[in-house]
């Protein structure tokens, strides 16, 4: 019973989301607002700024390098959290 209620609510949500798509920018359109001067800056200036060919690599390790620092921290956090849950058996037993 409860599951059906959730299903109906979520279906309604889906209908609302899909029906509002025609008021959103069309996918793949060159005139879409997300493809603005920021994206063009990355495309045009990567070679000059960082001297590499892969633009995505330039963004994650140079333009927005701080995000990647945060992301390595997420990895570190997850391993600390897993260690704190599953105990210290992973430590080499000889020591």
């Amino acid at each position: 019973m409860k599951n059906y209620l959730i299903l109906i609510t979520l279906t309604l949500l889906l209908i609302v989301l899909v029906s509002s798509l025609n008021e959103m920018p069309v996918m793949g359109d060159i005139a879409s607002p997300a493809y603005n001067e920021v994206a063009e800056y990355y495309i045009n200036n990567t070679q000059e700024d960082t001297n590499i060919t892969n633009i995505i690599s330039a963004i994650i390790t140079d333009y927005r390098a701080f995000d990647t620092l945060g992301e390595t921290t997420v990895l570190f956090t997850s391993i600390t959290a897993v260690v704190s849950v599953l105990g210290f058996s992973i430590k080499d037993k000889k020591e």
Partner: protein
Amino acid sequence: MNSAHLPVYILLILLVSAVTTPLTKANSKFFNIKLFGSLFFVNILALLQLLMVWSSGPLRYSFGNWDSAIGIEFLIDEYTSLLVLAIVIISTLIVIFSTKDILLDISKEKTPSYYTLVLLLMFSMSGMVMTNDLFNLYVFMEILSLTSCAIISIKDHRANTMASFKYLMLGTIGSVSILLGIAMLYMVTGHLNMTLTNETISTVWQFYPRNILISLSFITTGLGLKAAIFPLHIWLPDAYTVAPNSSSAILAAFVTKVYAFTLIKFVYRVIGIEVIKTISINEYLAIFAVISIIMGSMFAIGQKDIKRMLAYSSVSQIGYIFLGISLSSELGLSASLFHIIAHALMKSTLFLTVGAVIYKKGIRKVSDFDGLGYEMPLTLGAFSIAALGMIGIPGINGFMSKWYLSLAAFEVGKPIFIVFILISSFLNAIYFLPIGISAFLKESMYREQVMQKDDLPLSLKAPIVLLALGCIITGIFPDIIMSFIERALPTFLSIGL
């Protein structure tokens, strides 16, 4: 040391100290020196940053010197720097408290993990408060949700694991919703910088009203889930009840507040208050806030476990912050901002005093508090001060936030909210007053009615006393906080800087 890099130094010291903690041996002399040395430095730097921002205005810091549109930018206004200072000071006090207290709950060899997680928690909270970039916010938010789950599950008990899993699932739904909201904003603006997003939205929002509406509802739901507003609070009581005492103190004091502050940022800095008023989403927010205020207090009344009672009272207090946001006026915003810090002081005092009682006596039932005031007068005194603040007795900071909130409600012509605030104060009195009164006046059959000194270790006593003093000082001189808020208000209310 160049003073322009202060925010980076604060974050880096926390991060380096966190990642090197597993290398040192638990509770050795060097371990403590390193931990408290780095915390001390962070406090000093946060204070310096506050002074710098106070004297020279809001600070914008770009990483890698890139233009704010293409790189990541921090925006540190007066209030943000105050909040960062509050976060590091109160967290430091809680860490001092936890040096003795945490050994009740976790084994000694796990303490390095615990401190690593607490330092990462401080790192992510400070970063989340300072950042002015939408995706950077998401990254910090994920660190925060992982660490805040992990400091619950670190206690080796099955109830902890279950509570933490529930929190992780709901928290991840929240962050995924927020990321979807951010994606929808990015879809129509093409910017990730909050200021630039705001500028773009103010010109394009008529073309894409659906985008803004859906994105804002996803973001509000996600942040409401993480900040535990009433119908979405189901993870909170379990999590706070079973967590180690210092963990619940840090979670109640700041983690939910940081999410509430993030909502303030979204409403005022990203979308802009004019757009919010036009699509009138603040009216819905007000309904949830009021339900949260009333229902949180109602649930708190029936609780037998004192930590669970405090947890439900947190739900009601988050309602105040949301109510302030939904009033969407200058006064309402400043009431919310004031309450974030005021409640952090009060709730951390309450949780730490309860932690001290559990440490000393091992009791956590509300009914066992009878006559306890004779044995632990200092602790229960601090508890009573914070409890009176929650009720709203003049002279303690909780009263001031209710006062500002009432003024704001009156100003925007919705005096009905004042009635709800009064009802909530009354409900708060029902569950807080009996504890304070019976602790000092009621006779208990187990104890003698002789006033004693409570022989707590200094590391437990000092944080409690300092936090209780903080409650009183900010209650008598609210201008200490309000002057920062007044200066910071223009960065929230006008477009750009």
